[in-house]
């Protein structure tokens, strides 16, 4: 019920985090831990495993803050990347464990829980990734895509709003969308 989301992210937080301000870590946790936790819960199905991943993500992030560059990535996107890695590590560890358990003839039931639909949660994480890609596009591509995405304007309307030729708007839309698609697909392969 509290709208403490990752989508109104202030770049100042990125810099505060990079320079080691603990308050920025706490704020990142406040804003992003529900997403991190829910992504882990959906993938791993157990609260205890999701707890572990959540702790791991923020501990890993803080310890490697020296390698975080605010110019290159916004903190939410960076944390989503760490989350995907941590979940994938947890899944491999579980697989190894289950193989051992199967070998020993004892398959342990787990406390699987249902959470929000996986597709929705993934889309929220993807949106964070895409917002960063949108930032990297630069103008006028970024302005064009925002008008298309968030104000639902047609390419015709965008062309007259921004006073750019129709052909230019269309080709920017094609290239930007394809770049964003690639970014998403690469992100998912990595996880």
């Amino acid at each position: 019920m509290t709208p403490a989301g990752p989508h109104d992210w202030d770049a100042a937080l990125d810099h505060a985090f990079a320079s080691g301000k603990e308050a920025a870590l706490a704020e990142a946790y406040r804003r992003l831990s529900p997403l991190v936790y829910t992504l882990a819960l959906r993938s791993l199905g157990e609260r205890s495993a999701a707890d572990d991943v959540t702790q791991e993500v923020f501990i890993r992030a803080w310890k490697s803050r020296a390698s975080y560059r605010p110019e290159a990535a916004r903190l939410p996107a960076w944390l989503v990347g760490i989350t995907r890695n941590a979940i994938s590590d947890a899944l491999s560890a579980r697989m190894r464990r289950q193989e051992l358990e199967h070998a020993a003839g004892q398959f342990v039931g787990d406390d699987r829980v249902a959470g929000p639909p996986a597709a929705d949660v993934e889309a929220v994480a993807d949106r964070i990734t895409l917002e960063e890609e949108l930032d990297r596009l630069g103008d006028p591509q970024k302005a064009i895509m925002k008008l298309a995405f968030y104000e639902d304007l047609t390419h015709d309307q965008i062309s007259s709003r921004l006073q750019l030729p129709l052909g230019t708007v269309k080709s920017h839309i094609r290239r930007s969308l394809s770049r964003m698609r690639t970014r998403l697909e690469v992100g998912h392969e990595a996880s």
Partner: protein
Amino acid sequence: MKHLDDEQLSLMALGEPALTPAEADHLAFCSECSGTLAALERTVRAATVDPARVELATPGPRNWAAIHQALGLSPEQAEDPLSRQGAAGSTTTTAGSATPLTPPTPLRPRTEGTAAGSAGEAGSAGSGSPRTGAGARRWVAMAAAAGIVVGAAAVWAGYNVLGQGPQAGPSPSPTAPQPVVIAQAPLQPLASYTSTGKALVEELPDGTRQLVVQLSDGQISGFREVWVISPDLSKLVSLGVLDGEPGVFALPAGLDLAEYPIVDVSNEPFDGNPAHSSDSIARGELAAEN
């Protein structure tokens, strides 16, 4: 028939009908084209998902305790940041406010850390009402500003077309010609600030315009700079430093305020970086005076 081109597929993914019947037939039978379209549609869906509609589970308090301990953080960070929301007992949260716009184009992040203070303040407790993050209200305001832009531009255009210039208004005193207010904007505080005020566009008898900015005092870490910003967030113009009360800024003759209807006052650190700090104190949108 040859494949559909990627421009058509991109526009379709964005919901624009862009196909002839022959092309639609091709799409129905071509797995390559329909595959590309599906991937582009997924991308558009992800970019436009409303995080406020997705319920997220909240990690329990022992998670922060474990992080706090593992990293040896200072005692002042001991409280679970999630409990600061004043949402005790709630088991779910939403992923974000329904802000239709992401942080805007022109306010680029600086390349060096300058605003640690705002991160600390951003975590301060909200009372009663659901609080948004430090940046949230700002972008909500931005979105609102962007929303009114068409209206504001229309008013400006109407004003110009009808030629209801200041001369048509109350006649100025012949001895001491007074500037005429042709537009104004209430300035509302953003993020962690409380300063409020007003911006007026005045036209002087010689036809030049000036922006008069009045803003109540408040604690800031740097100096105050006045900007006008375009509705699509792609452009901004600095008008100068707001020092005295009120600040008066000459508006260049070629500056079309319909293009830059948003008045913004920022908190600028003394770092020699001429870009907007992304740290706005107050903001408002100009509306023409009738």
